[in-house]
């Protein structure tokens, strides 16, 4: 099998491979076989994942197979809806067909969350520089993705905006860079500091309001095989007009919240316990409260400067 960039494949080939379910996306630790006949999904993929590595050939061994398709024949013509089918039973809510890209992204996330058992997965964004990694834990409305995207502009490398992927053997974080999902107001915020051409078209009327994606960077893909050692764990709290504030957290509390956010910690068992405890022995955890992106960046930079290299 050989590796090519998605943009090197002619559009007809991409279309054919996708309709046959043989577009093998090789990203970070996973190979996903993608399948769709939906033109909107195909366009989104071709654009946002253009620099990604594709395995070409008939004999791929894949971690996940994902089909994005109409829920059934009747609905395909009448209601024009679309669902993600990761090949195992999952109660998917069919979405309007124009939300196909959301379905693709959601389906890819579900594959990792529910079918990957070699690494412990926690719901968090991760960025890093030569010092090590910053884990930004997910909290409803906490602003994880906005902060992750903002840190990317500050010279940090993106490992993931959705998952902290902890290697059980090394306790290092693995990279699975994907387009960063932005919601509502944060779409405009990121368009301003990353440039409008770096952000996808806006999907309106999704279950989470408006959604757009920040484009994958070539540099993040090129370094995707480099793991990072976690040094700092942040629990962001966005509150309109709040004064910036930092509070040191008990590591035990941080551990508790990370475990509660993991879809596979329980399945992996003892190796996940060891890896998490080892990771936590080398980190500090903080809750940061802020009312705007500038404040959040200032807080993170201050904390990061205090961390030993």
């Amino acid at each position, binding site marked *: 099998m050989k590796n090519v960039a998605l943009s090197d494949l002619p559009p007809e080939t991409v279309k054919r491979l996708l309709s046959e379910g043989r577009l093998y996306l090789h990203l970070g630790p996973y190979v996903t076989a993608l399948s769709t006949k939906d033109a909107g999904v195909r366009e989104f993929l071709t654009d946002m994942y253009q620099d990604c590595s594709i395995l070409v050939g008939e004999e791929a061994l*894949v*971690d996940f*197979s994902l089909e994005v398709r109409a829920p059934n024949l009747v609905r395909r013509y009448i209601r024009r809806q679309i669902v993600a089918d990761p*090949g195992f039973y999952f109660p998917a809510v069919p979405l309007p067909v124009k939300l196909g890209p959301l379905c693709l992204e959601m389906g890819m996330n579900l594959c990792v969350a529910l079918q990957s058992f*070699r690494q412990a997965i926690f719901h968090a964004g991760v960025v890093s520089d030569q010092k090590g990694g910053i884990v930004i834990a997910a909290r409803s409305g906490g602003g994880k993705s906005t902060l992750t995207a903002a840190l990317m502009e500050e010279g940090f490398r993106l490992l993931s905006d959705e998952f902290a992927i902890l290697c059980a053997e090394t306790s290092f974080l693995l990279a699975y860079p994907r387009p960063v999902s932005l919601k509502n107001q944060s779409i405009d915020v990121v368009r301003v500091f990353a440039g409008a051409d770096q952000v996808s078209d806006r999907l309106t009327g999704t279950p989470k309001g408006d959604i757009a994606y920040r484009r994958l960077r070539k540099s993040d893909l090129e370094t995707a095989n480099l793991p990072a050692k976690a040094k700092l764990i942040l629990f962001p709290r966005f509150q309109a007009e709040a004064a910036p504030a930092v509070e040191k957290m008990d590591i035990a509390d941080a551990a508790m919240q990370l475990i509660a956010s993991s879809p596979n910690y329980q*399945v992996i*068992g003892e190796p996940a316990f060891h890896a998490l405890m080892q990771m936590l022995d080398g980190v500090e955890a903080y809750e940061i409260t802020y009312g705007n992106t500038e404040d959040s960046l200032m807080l993170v930079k201050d904390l990061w400067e205090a961390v030993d290299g």
Partner: protein
Amino acid sequence: MVEMATSENPHERVRQFFCFASGLTPLPTDAKALSDFVSWAQRGHILGQVAAVASASDNKRLQTLLENAATRSAYDKRMLKFETERIERALLGTDIRVVLLKGSAYVAEDLLAGIGRRVSDIDILVKEEDLPEAEKLLRQAGWKDEVSTANPYDQKYYRDWMHELPPLRHSKRRTIIDVHHRLLPRTARISPDHLAMMADASPVGDGNLLVFAPVDRFIHSAIHIFADGALETPARSLLELFYLFNDLSVQERDSLESRAAFLNVMSPVQIALWALKRYFGVMVIVNKSNISKVLRLSIETMVENGRAAPLARVLLYVRSHYLRMPLPLLMAHLFRKAIRRG
């Protein structure tokens, strides 16, 4: 050795796949054949079983996928084992003897059939007269009515017609336990002699839990798969039957049919033997007169065409319900289910 590409004939192809899956033949080294097989095993959720019997390979990608599947099946095994211990603890100090059924029994006995099973329910069998006390103790230990069947209609339906209590879900651990007092519903067309099977059951280690004798274990699996509607996961079910059959001695295999006749469960056992012969090349003589052609066809469609067989699925579903319930009762039940969903 010349590596054969995967056969185009669906029956041959599935037969080859089952040989790989059960370790009868080593995994193919041809990349295309390997990829076809692995993707079939992934779709059928049996990669965990494959991981348990496959020998180490130089193929790093393959090892990665097998390791992933093995971790997942180790979790199910751990869970089944722990829940089994919790049941033993809940009934500690009483005279109630519990027979572990299916997955929990295979895991308790460390059988190959217990590896890679992805089940979340634990099935146990107790004597009907022990039922009230067993239910009371399990409730004390934290198992409560499962929300979806806690309504009065389902509660009454289970207690009047079924072979088990309404499912109980542990309030903290969220696991489900099905407490059986018979192997099939009171209304089923066939009525296995579960008391004879219980009489032959033996303890696990030196504990209070029991498991069926090997022949009865195979027979119960056949009943469950072919008379109780478990063929929703055909690859997994057939592998289980194969492993259980494989664990029998020659004498035990020879006694299968007479035991099945004695227990009044000839038909599912014959279907099971027919399927083992068809897909694993197991050397048995099968009397096909008891197996309806329609049923054979629908099993073939389901196993050989995978999930692209909606009609076969409906047939098997109706059949398993038909086996469980007389027609008027069945219609009433399906009708109520339809209304409650709508």
